[in-house]
C-alpha cells in the first residue's frame, strides 16, 4: 500500500500534471476566439476529458479536462504528504503553501458547483425585487385574475431544460398541461403572419431559427411552440419567445365558480431569482473624459427597501465598489439605453472567501520558503566573497 502511495507521490507526476494543465489552459484560451468564455469553460475546465470531434461526429479524447487534472493534483499532493514529506520546521513553508493551493482548487470547484450569476437591469426610476439569469430561461404561468393580489401571485415556473421538443409537461399543481411542439434555442424574429400558432401574439411574428450566438455579451432569443391543454382539451398552439416583452393571456373556467373565468398569463422569460428587497434606480451617472468616449467613472444611486429587515436606505454602487446584501454581491457591470439603464451583476458565491484565505496561505508559505532560501544563499555567498578577498 505504502509503495503505491509512494508511486502516486512522485514529483514527476506533479510536473506532468502541471504541463498538462498548461496545455489545457492554452487550448482553453485559444478556444475563446471562436466560442463564448462560458462554453470554453465548460468544455475545457469543468470537464473530465476534452474531446475533439471528427467530421463524422465521433469524439476523440485529446486532453484531460480540468476536473481530472485537479483530482490528480490533489491526490498527488496528499500522497506526498502521507509518504515522502519530511515534517521539519524548515519545510513548513512548503506545507503552508501547498495547503493554500489545495484550498484554491477546492474553492474553484465549489465556485463551479454552487455560484450563481445573474443581473439586474434597471431603467431610471424602475424598481425590481428580482435578478435575471444571463442565459437560462423559464416558462411561467401566472394566475392573473383580478381578484388575486398582484404582490402575492403564485408563479409556476418551468425551467428551460424541460422545454424539449416533444416533451409533455404535466403536474397536478399546474392549472394546465403543456405539450412542447418545438423548441428553438435561438432565432431571428420579424413581423408577419405566422400560420402555426393558433392563439396569442405569436401569430403575428415570423421566426427564423439561427445558430447560437458567439459573443459573451449577446443573448440567445429562445422560442417555443407549445400546445396548452386543459382538461384533456387543446386550447391552442402558442408561440412564445424571450423576445416578447409581455406575457400572453388566456381564460379558463374557474373550478370553484363555474360561472366565472380565471385569467392566466404565460410567458417565456429569463429565469428570475427573487430577492427579499427591492432596488430602485434613482440616478445613473456616467462621466467621460473630455472630448472622448472613454468612460471615466460610472455609478448607480439606488434605493434599497427591505420590508422584513426594516431597511430603507439609499446607496451607491460603482466600479470597484459593490453592494453586499443577502449573501449576494451586486456589481456595477454595464449600462445601456443612452445612459438611462444601469446593469448590475449579481453573484451569489458561498465559496467566495476561500480564495482569499488560500492566497494568504500560499503567499506566506512561498515567501517563507524562498526568502529563507535566498538569505541562506546570500549569506553563503558573502562568506565566499570575503574568503576570496581574504
Amino acid at each position, binding site marked *: 500500500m505504502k509503495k503505491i502511495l509512494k508511486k502516486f507521490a512522485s514529483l514527476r507526476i506533479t510536473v506532468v500534471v502541471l504541463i498538462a494543465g498548461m496545455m489545457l489552459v492554452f487550448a482553453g484560451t485559444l478556444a475563446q476566439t471562436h466560442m463564448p468564455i462560458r462554453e470554453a469553460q465548460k468544455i475545457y475546465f469543468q470537464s473530465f476529458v476534452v474531446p475533439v470531434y471528427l467530421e463524422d461526429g465521433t469524439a476523440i479524447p485529446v486532453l484531460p479536462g480540468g476536473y481530472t487534472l485537479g483530482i490528480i493534483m490533489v491526490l498527488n499532493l496528499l500522497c506526498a504528504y502521507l509518504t515522502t514529506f519530511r515534517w521539519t520546521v524548515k519545510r513548513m513553508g512548503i506545507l503552508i503553501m501547498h495547503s493554500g493551493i489545495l484550498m484554491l482548487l477546492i474553492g474553484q470547484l465549489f465556485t463551479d458547483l454552487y455560484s450563481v450569476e445573474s443581473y439586474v437591469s434597471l431603467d431610471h426610476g424602475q424598481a425590481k425585487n428580482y435578478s435575471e439569469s444571463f442565459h437560462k430561461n423559464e416558462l411561467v404561468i401566472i394566475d392573473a385574475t383580478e381578484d388575486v393580489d398582484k404582490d402575492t401571485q403564485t408563479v409556476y415556473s418551468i425551467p428551460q431544460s424541460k422545454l424539449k421538443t416533444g416533451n409533455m409537461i404535466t403536474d397536478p399543481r399546474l392549472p394546465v398541461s403543456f405539450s412542447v411542439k418545438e423548441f428553438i434555442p435561438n432565432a431571428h424574429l420579424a413581423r408577419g403572419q405566422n400560420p402555426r400558432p393558433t392563439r396569442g401574439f405569436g401569430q403575428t411574428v415570423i421566426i427564423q431559427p439561427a445558430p447560437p450566438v458567439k459573443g459573451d455579451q449577446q443573448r440567445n432569443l429562445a422560442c417555443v411552440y407549445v400546445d396548452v391543454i386543459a382538461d384533456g382539451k387543446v386550447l391552442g398552439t402558442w408561440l412564445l419567445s424571450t423576445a416578447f416583452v409581455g406575457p400572453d393571456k388566456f381564460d379558463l373556467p374557474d373550478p370553484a365558480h363555474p360561472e366565472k373565468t380565471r385569467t392566466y398569463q404565460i410567458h417565456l422569460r429569463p429565469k428570475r431569482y427573487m430577492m427579499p428587497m427591492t432596488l430602485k434606480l434613482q440616478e445613473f451617472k456616467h462621466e467621460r473624459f473630455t472630448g472622448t468616449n472613454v468612460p471615466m*467613472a460610472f455609478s448607480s444611486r439606488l434605493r434599497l427597501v427591505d420590508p422584513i429587515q426594516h431597511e430603507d436606505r439609499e446607496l451607491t454602487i460603482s466600479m470597484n465598489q459593490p453592494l453586499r446584501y443577502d449573501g449576494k454581491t451586486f456589481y456595477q457591470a454595464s449600462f445601456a439605453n443612452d445612459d438611462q439603464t444601469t446593469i448590475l451583476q449579481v453573484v451569489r458565491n458561498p465559496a467566495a472567501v476561500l480564495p482569499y484565505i488560500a*492566497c494568504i496561505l500560499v503567499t506566506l508559505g512561498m515567501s517563507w520558503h524562498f526568502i529563507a532560501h*535566498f538569505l541562506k*544563499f546570500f549569506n553563503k555567498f558573502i562568506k565566499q566573497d570575503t574568503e576570496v578577498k581574504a
Partner: protein
Amino acid sequence: MNISRSKQTLMSTMLIILCMSTSIFAQETKQPATNATPDWKALGSIAVMHSGRLKPLDTVARSSMLMICGKQTVKVNGQSMHALEWLMQVMCKPEVADNYRVFLIHDPDIQALLQLGEEDKRWSFTELIPHLQLISAQANEAQSVQSHQRNRYQRAIIELYNHVTSYVRLKNAIAPEQSKDFAKQAQDAAALVKSLIADPDKLTDDMVSHINILKKGYENLAQKSNIHFVPPIGELEWSRIGEHMRLVLLGLPMDDSVIRMATIRKAYREGDWQTINTMVTEHLATPAQQQSKVRSEAMFNRMALLVNAMPIYALGLVVTLIAMMFKTRWMMITGTVIVLAAIATHTFGLGWRMWIEGRPPVINLYGSAVFIGWGATIMAMVLEKIYKNGLGNIAACLIGFSTLIIAHHLSLSGDTIEPVRAVLDSNFWLTTHVLIVTLGYSSMFVAGALGLIFVVRDVILRNFTKQSYARMGRMVYGIICFAMLFSFVGTVLGGIWADQSWGRFWGWDPKENGALLIVLWNAAILHARWCGMVQVRGMMMMAILGNCITAFSWFGVNMMGVGLHSYGFMDGAFMWLIGFCISQLIFVAIGLFPVGQTMPDDESNDNVRKQKPILLPRQD
C-alpha cells in the same frame, strides 16, 4: 588592488556621466537665436486639452505624427522636419502640408484598393483626396463588423480612416483650413455682437443672415477639430476655438487665446517669427497656462530619455562583450558603469513619466514594456553585483534594449499617457497587482536571457568551467524562484481585484489564463528540478521556453482581442511574436544539441559525470 579598482570605477563613471549629460542636455541649453526661427520650445509648451487630458502641444504633435506617419520626423524635400514643425504647418499652412507624404499605408490590400502602386509606403493628403469617399465608405462597411471579428483589411481601412480624420482635425484646429486671417474675422464677429448687445435696434436682416453664416461656420469648425485651445471660463471647461466662438455669438466675451492662436497662425503663414514668439510668450504667461506638469511633459518629450537609453544599453552590451572577450578588468567596470548609466536614464524616464501621469507606471501596454524592462535590468544588476561576471550586464542590456524597442513600437498607436478607463481606475490595484505581475514577467525574461547566454557559452563558445556552470545554474534557479513568487502573488491579487469589481475570483479570461500559464510553468520548472527530471541544462531550456510563454501572456492574449482584459488590443505584432517564439525554440534546439560540456550540477558531485541525455529522468 582595491584602490586602483575604485579609481577605475570613478574615472569611467565620471567620463560616462559627462558624455551623457552633454549629449542629453545639449539640446536643452541651446538657446534659439531670437526671432530668426520660431521658439519651438515655447510653442511646444502651450497647454491644450486633447483626448481627455491636459497636455503640451508638443505631445499632440508627436503622438499625431507617430500615429499617422509611424515616425518621429517627416522628410520634406530631403530635409527632416520635426513633429511640432509639421503640426504647425498642418494647422497654419494646410495647403502646403497636404503635399507632405505622411500617411503610412502598408497594407497591400489597401494599396491595391487605392491603386497607389508599391514604390512608396507613405502618401500625401493631396494624393489621397480622390480616394477619400472610397476610404470612408469602406471604413463604414468595416465598422459594422464587431471589433474583434474584423479581419486585417478591415482593421487597416478603419485605421487609415481614423488617421485621415485626425489629420483633418489638426488642419482645422485653430481656424477653418481655407481661412487666411481668422484673427480679424473673429475680432469683427466679436465687435459686431458687442455693438448689437449695446444697441439691439441696429440689428438688420443682413446682420442676422451674416451671424447665421458665422454660426454655421463655427459649428462646423468645432466639429472638425479636437484640440481644446481655449482655457476654462467660469463653469465652462476647456473648449475648442469653434465652440468658443459660437458662444461669443451668443454674447460671451471672447477669450484672448483665440486671437493669440489666430495671430500665431497668420504670422506663421507669413513667416513672421517675431510676432509668433511675442504671442507665445504672452500666451504662456496667462494663468491657465501655468501648468507645471504640462511644461515638464514638453521637456520630457524633448529629452526622450526612454529613447536615449537604448543606444546606451547597446553600448553597454558591446563594451561588456569586449571586456569578456579580452578579460580586461577595467573594461568590465566601464561596461558595468555604462549599463548603470543606461538604467539610470531608464529609471529617470520611468519616474518622470509616472509623475506626469500621477499614476503607477503600468496603465497600458506601453507602460508595461517600459516597466518590465526596468524591473529586469534591476534584477540583472543585482545578479551582476553578486556574481560580477558580466552576465548580469549582458542580460540587462538585452532586455533593457529590446523592451524599450517594443515600447517605442507600441507608442506608434498614439499618446502613451492616456486616460485610465473606469474599470482600471484604482491606484491601489494598479500598484499591487499590476506591478507585481509585471515584475513576474521581468524575472521570467531575466531567467530566459540567462538561458540564452548559457546556450551561447555552452554550445558555441564552450568556455564553461565547472564552477561557472554551476554558478549559472544557481543564478537561474534563484531568479525562477522569484518569478514564481511574483507571478503567483500578482495573479492572485488580480483574482482578488476581479472578485472585488466583477464578482468572480477567476473567470478563465485570456489574460488570467496567460498569467496562470506562467505560474504553472514556473511550478513545473521548480518541481522538475527538485525531482531531478532536469539538470542545469534542462532548467535553462525550460527558462528559454519561459520567454515564449511570457511573451504570449503579455502580448498574445491581447492579440486575441477577447475577454474583459482586452483593453490593450493591438494588431500587426503577431508575426513578431511568432518570430520571437521560433527564435527561442531554435535556441532550445541548439542547447539540446549534444556538443556542449555536460557538467555535474553540484560542485560536490565532481566525480559523477553525467553523460545522459538532458530532459530525461535521473536514475538513482
